[in-house]
């Protein structure tokens, strides 16, 4: 039983594609998996063609229990369920503030789901907020897609500083390169400089039109185009992560 948060302070780095494809691969490997879309934009929900019920909102999420269970929906794939996001999540920090131990609320409401699901993936919104703190508290691993550029490294440093500030170890951070382009010299150099650092995974997800097209066919790339370069890269990433999950 593990909770894996897919997180980056920056947007547009491939978080949702990563959550969707890894959650799908996890279920394909026989693990009962739940994907929680934490991003009010609801992109992961969109990819799975799932809409939250009208009555569902961030307050229900934070109440937990049956309010969550009633709103979990089955995807089109066996062993893979999803808790869709609601637009009200954009104000979730305000709702969180009402709770005692407001930085641990998410962990608390996810707790009972761990008896049903072997893996829970959290697709996180790009920011550093009280919700992020909740996510870091709840997660066993924080999986960070990084585009190999200078600015990305800066955001990584911000993440580490923040973790330190709130008293979390950086051991649970796993970094991998996303949207990497072989023809860009900076990408290559950046990856070479980083690849042997602790917590940096070897699998690299290349920039791929197949991933971008996920929005058209609305399926995980590993389901729609299992043999593609992108799908193979996600397989490798899953294999690497599952070693951590098993330990």
């Amino acid at each position, binding site marked *: 039983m593990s909770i894996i948060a897919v997180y980056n302070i920056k947007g547009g780095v491939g978080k949702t594609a990563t959550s969707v494809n890894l959650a799908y691969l996890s279920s394909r490997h*026989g693990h009962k998996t739940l994907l929680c879309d934490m991003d009010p934009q609801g992109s992961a929900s969109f990819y799975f*063609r*799932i809409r939250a019920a009208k009555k569902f909102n961030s307050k229900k999420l934070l109440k937990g229990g049956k309010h969550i269970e009633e709103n979990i*929906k*089955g995807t089109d794939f066996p062993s893979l*369920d999803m808790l869709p996001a609601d637009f009200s999540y954009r104000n979730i920090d305000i709702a969180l503030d009402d709770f005692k131990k407001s930085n641990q609320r998410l962990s608390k409401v996810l707790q009972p789901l761990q008896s049903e699901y072997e893996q829970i993936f959290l697709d996180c919104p790009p920011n550093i907020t009280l919700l992020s703190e909740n996510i870091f508290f709840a997660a066993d691993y924080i999986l960070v897609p990084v585009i190999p550029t200078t600015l990305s490294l800066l955001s990584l440093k911000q993440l580490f500083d923040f973790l330190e500030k709130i008293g979390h170890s950086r051991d649970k951070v796993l970094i991998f390169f996303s949207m990497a382009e072989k023809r860009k010299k900076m990408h290559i150099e950046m990856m070479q400089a980083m690849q042997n650092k602790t917590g940096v995974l070897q699998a690299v997800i290349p920039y791929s039109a197949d991933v971008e097209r996920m929005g058209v066919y*609305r399926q995980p790339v590993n389901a729609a185009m299992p043999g593609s370069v992108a799908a193979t890269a996600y397989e490798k990433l899953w294999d690497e992560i599952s070693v951590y999950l098993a330990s």
Partner: protein
Amino acid sequence: MHQPDTDTWFMPDSLQVSALLSVLAAEFGVAATPEYSATVVYADSFDWRLFRQGYILHCHNQAWTLYHGDSGEITVQQGGPELNRSCFARDFPPGVLREVLAPLLAVRCLLPMATVTLIGHQIRLLNRDEKTVARVVFEEQRLATAQPVFRMLRLFGIRGYDQALHTVRRILEENGVTQPASPLIGFVEGCKGEGRQPLDYSSKFTMELHAGYTARQAMVRIYRQLLTAINQNIPGVIEDFDSEFLHDLRVAIRRTRSGLSLVKNVLPTPVVESFKKDFGILGSITGPTRDLDVYLLEQDDYLARLPTTLQPALHAFFEGLALRRQAAHKKMVRALQSKKSKAILSAWKHYLTSDDQEPASAAEVDIGHLSGRIIFRRFKRVMKDGKALDAATPDAEVHRLRIQCKKLRYAIEFFSSLYPVEEIALLVRQLKKLQDILGAFNDLSVQQEMLHRSLEGLRAGSHRNLEQAAALGGLMQSLFQQQQELRGHFAEAFAMFSDPQNEALFNRLFRNRQEPS
């Protein structure tokens, strides 16, 4: 009326799939997946170890699917071996399927139980986002052996889309899809075609007796059931699918012999004497192969007892054992197929279906009365021998006590249905603890003797034999040490069994048992 748990129905003969689909298409988007067609072989151990746990396993060439029989939910789908003869859990590649199968099957192999051709296609029902909200599967199941074709429809809901499921159920009902079906009908009917039926065999002895039976009626029923077990296992012993066939065969033979010697004056003495001798012969025919089976099953444990440097020599030793076992099995098969063996079993069968010309003195006694006396006599014997047990008791005497315990166990099992279930379970549990320790002790003793004999048979002078001798020596030391440790536990194991409460229970159940009303 809705039956929420029923998700499989027979398709009415008059209803075409296309007609039903067009009705569904008025409410949902409809996406059809390509038709599938596969002839699958359902597999289980001879004693249904998977089915007993709610699992159904089938293979289509090397593609295996394990699922829950009730829900139809697939647990795991994985590549594996061809279902040839003797397909064991260890023949599967490491992975989820093997992890599930290994503890369930243990030493038993998978056997083909039924062959069924499944032809069908899945329809996904979609909402306006083209999200799947329910699945309908049309499936035909055809048996390899017989004619009937089962046409059925299965409905699978998807979490969070209850409303859609409700709508589909309503449409099905309106179109006459109302007769519930078992999704396993092809499997069950296919087994029938092969002369099998799920759960038709268990190595556990269970016999429903009633206090009104005469002793002869009861014993004949018991012997018949044991004879059935003997006959069920012989083909597997001859084919040598797995070692449990022989084990179960020997247990059934031993139970029969125990019955003949424990229950006196119920069958005429000449009959008892003659069949005791005959079943003794069957026991000795099957002994040598079983002994070697036991060693071969211990192979991994034996290897683990030795340092890696000595393990190759032990491998060679086991290769020798495997060859000896092959020869012993061949000899045993010849003996089991001999006229003599067949004559014993058919004479016994004939006897069990005929009447005695001169009934024995206790033949008409009520079994409820007799059983208590028999069990209590065995109990007293175990108590007497057990009290003499201590850490210094010679191996042979420990062995004798073990046999006494076995006889008591068989006697209790024969007649258990005449007594309260929970109290019998308690007694058997206590007895089993004692039996386990005595059994383990005896195994260690016998194994050391065998190793010693093998050691004596090794010629000096060759390096290979020298290494093998070292391995055997190391093994003997390890077994001996474990055996000594077990001695230290005799007293406590027997103390638990002879606990005053346990003794009182024996007394109450079996000693002063009144003639049942």
